[in-house]
């Protein structure tokens, strides 16, 4: 077997050193009844590299890829162009096959990268600090809610109706067990986010308000009044960013005084990957750093006085604090954080702003074109690279019909909010730098034809 270097004479020589007659003698502590006498019967035997490649390629071919079709899906996962050097660099064995940097003297590569990543993320989100990544945006969002409870010692969180429904669903699942009270509502197909409604709900039991920016329908709102209202009641404002490229064009939540900003970093470097692995972003104000979940990398010096980096504040973490830890998280999303960081370094501020400009310009023209179709209305007043259309009919079957024609038209709100009849005609359309004008025209004509 190609992954096993041991030879039969090696095995015999080693058994002799151990003083065991056979391999079975090493499994003597496994009760007889639980020992299998041979390979698991229902499963196939080993296969050559060529055979496995054939098998996997056949499965891959059964999917319609984003690159093969006019493609307009977003809602928490975006198709962006990832420069070729990103994937080359993350496949360097010293990054790919390293472990968590618990031995800092021989892990400065990972550690310096994490320090750079933390700084890039903090600057992008507008927070003082950021951690070394979380699993993804949805779990980062829940961790932020729990962190707000630890800080405020209050158990009620108000979730904006514009928060991604999967993020709401994750929070609902966890809250059932932790006893946190969540105030949630489904969104309405209206032009603007209703921050006043959120503000009216804040009371003395509120630990935090969670608001997505831009929200699930693509809408953008100034968060400052909401932050002020939260702080007036000593509650925290948590902002969730699922499209970090947007922050190249619009003011960051941290600049608008959000206390904790979390996000999904998939847009930069990571790719669609059918939903994972992605990379959770997590930043906050300095004063809350010791309540943060997840790993943190910090600067220090070595015995010779040279600058170096280590994992730090680990007294918050499970391997030291066990049941008193701020979170049970151990593994993070290191390699995706690396991809994010490399992509961000290639872009730089100038590139990120240009990328955001291209995205927004494309979305504006696509919104104009699509809303010219008879019966189709643009819901949003504001948006970045994603907006919601209201169709004259249920959007879900329309999306399926368009998929049959090789067009991936967007995310129907019927898929995201099954059973919410008022949302059934909603279609969320994302436009990025990968979308061509021809793609938009293809979608527009097909949509017009289907709706006629």
């Amino acid at each position, binding site marked *: 077997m190609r*992954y096993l270097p041991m030879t039969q004479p090696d095995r015999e020589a080693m058994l002799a050193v151990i003083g065991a007659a056979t391999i079975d003698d090493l499994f003597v502590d496994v009760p007889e009844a639980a020992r299998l006498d041979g390979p698991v019967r229902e499963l196939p035997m080993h296969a050559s590299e060529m055979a496995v490649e054939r098998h996997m390629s056949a499965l891959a071919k059964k999917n319609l890829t984003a690159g093969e079709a006019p493609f307009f899906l977003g809602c928490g996962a975006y198709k962006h162009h990832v420069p070729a050097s990103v994937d080359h660099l993350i496949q360097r064995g010293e990054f790919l096959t390293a472990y968590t940097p618990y031995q800092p003297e021989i892990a400065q590569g990972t550690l310096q990268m994490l320090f750079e990543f933390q700084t890039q993320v903090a600057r992008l989100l507008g927070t003082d600090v950021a951690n070394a990544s979380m699993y993804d945006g949805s779990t980062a969002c829940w961790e932020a809610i729990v962190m707000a409870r630890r800080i405020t010692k209050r158990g009620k969180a108000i979730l904006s109706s514009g928060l991604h429904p999967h993020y709401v669903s994750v929070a609902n699942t966890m809250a059932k067990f932790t006893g946190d009270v969540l105030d949630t509502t489904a969104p309405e197909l209206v032009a603007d986010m209703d921050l006043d409604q959120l503000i009216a709900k804040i009371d003395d039991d509120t630990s935090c308000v969670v608001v997505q920016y831009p929200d699930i329908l693509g809408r953008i709102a100034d968060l400052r009044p909401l932050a002020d209202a939260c702080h007036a009641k000593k509650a925290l404002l948590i902002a969730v960013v699922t499209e970090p490229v947007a922050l190249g064009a619009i003011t960051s939540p941290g600049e608008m005084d959000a206390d904790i900003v979390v996000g999904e970093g998939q847009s930069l470097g990571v790719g669609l990957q059918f939903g994972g692995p992605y990379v959770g972003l997590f930043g906050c104000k300095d004063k809350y750093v010791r309540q943060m979940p997840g790993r943190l990398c910090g600067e*220090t010096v070595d015995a010779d006085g040279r600058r170096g980096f280590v994992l730090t504040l680990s007294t918050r973490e499970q391997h030291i604090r066990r049941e008193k830890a701020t979170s049970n998280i151990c593994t993070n999303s290191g390699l995706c954080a690396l991809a994010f960081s490399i992509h961000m370094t290639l872009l730089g501020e100038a590139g990120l702003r240009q990328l955001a400009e291209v995205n927004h310009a494309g979305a504006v023209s696509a919104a104009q074109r699509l809303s010219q179709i008879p019966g189709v209305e643009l819901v*949003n007043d504001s948006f970045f690279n994603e907006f919601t259309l209201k169709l004259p009919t249920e959007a879900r079957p329309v999306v399926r019909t368009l998929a049959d024609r090789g067009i991936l038209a967007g995310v129907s709100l019927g898929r995201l909010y099954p059973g919410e009849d008022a949302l059934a005609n909603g279609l969320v359309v994302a436009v990025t730098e990968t979308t061509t004008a021809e793609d938009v025209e293809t979608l527009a004509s097909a949509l017009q034809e289907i709706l006629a």
Partner: protein
Amino acid sequence: MSINQSGWRPTAPEANTGGVPASVTGNKALMLEEALIFEIGDTHTTGVDFEFLPGTGRGTIRRMVEGAVRERAVLGKPPSTSCAGPPPRAGEDRLAGLSRTAPIGLPGLSEPETVRHYTRLSRQNYGIDLGFFPLGSCTMKHNPRLNEKMARLPGFSDVHPLQPVDTVQGALEVIHQLAHWLVTLTGMTSVAMSPKAGAHGELCGILAIRAALEAKGEGARKIILVPESAHGTNPATAAFAGYSVEDIPATAEGRVDTAALKARLGPDVAGVMITNPNTCGLFERDMREISDAVHAAGGFVYCDGANFNAIVGRVRPGDLGIDAMHINLHKTFSTPHGGGGPGSGPVVFSEALTPYAPLPFVENRDGQFVLVEEETAGEHHAGSFGRMVAFHGQMGMFTRALTYILSHGADGLRQVSEDAVLNANYILRSLDDTLDAPFGPSGPCMHEALFSDSGLAAGFSTIDIAKGLIDEGFHPMTMYFPLVVHGAMLVEPTETESKAALDQFIAALRSVAERAKAGDPSLKTAPHFAPRARLDETLAARKPVLVWKDPAPLAQAAE
């Protein structure tokens, strides 16, 4: 005498009489220092070209369209001349008046500078590709590159999680095939694929247990029993899920004290979390008996599957009576650790817990693969405790793990655990004359060998041995874990090491251990040959510097 007029001659080394000079750069030949991107980049540089002229409104879209036309024309399609409409003019954007005004402070590098920056950083890392990485409980085995190649097939890597299910049948089939392997290898009933890592899998298992108890009207059970030797994630997970944690003592031979555990069972105990094989590297012989006792007392058994590599293909945890177990695909099934993730932690369930497993999951209905989510769960999975994560889990890890599993097959996986256990026992018995092996007399170990710091010279500890190993070219073993052994050194070789590699490691560890026993002071300052000497972790925690701050401007600094 020179060979030509340039003065060239073949080199011939001369004896060094002048000592070793320090380099002005701080570099040492192949070992290159690298500054931070904030020190070498600036906010005007970008390593990415765009298909438009920056800063111009109308030109933006025209160039995009031209770019698109070019591309399509190359592909042989008729070029489209239609324009998607006029772009926003200045002041006509749709950004709600929130356009960025302040600078962000993100440095950019050109592509060659970027490639060099990260290549240089990578060379300051140790990885499995470079050498032996015997971190106990982490299963640092070879990461096959076929896995990487398969995960990058566009059919897997370039697919959106919310595409209509008819367009992602192959992706769903991957999840379904991997699920089938995991259920069959463990002898369990079902598997939840969505947990993002091991600790997330633990949470999944514990939430299913709690949901099952609540469904039976037994929500009053508030205690989870966890052995002292457990991974820190176990008690942290139980606490996160709202349980109180109580320790179970260990026997002198390093196993769970079955009698003490049984004595503690009662109507307040929700379940136990047991790692098997345990973190002392031993198989819990009484696992079946423990499971039966816990079930008889109305509780459930969670098994931490971090050490599944020791038994894969030889023992099915389902035969030991457990109810839930997470499987770290980044350990047993060779997906890369990536410097700390991403992982993937599917959880297998017994029949009793299956109705409570989380959403979503994939079902095969007459050859059509269906994603069961909130919408349809009510039909036949109404007991589910809900969703743990956006979308469907770590697809990129599923493709890698399935590729690995198909490569090994049932026979290869059995050989994996055999060689992993053989290698660990070889290390244990080759070194137990030099290092204290507290549970050596308990019999064979499983896939990891445990030593203590007993017998080292005064003032010397496990960390000195670890740092000494770095100088010998190895990644150290896990240190100070499990907590039940003083100065623990947990060595997990995995099956992908050759005997020659093990022999070299054994010789190195023997030498370093002997130096520690003899009180060699040079070991206290090791490593001497690494990119950095020992780092000041105390300073890092006392005055945390977690982000880079621009140095004060010169004028200001001078004041």
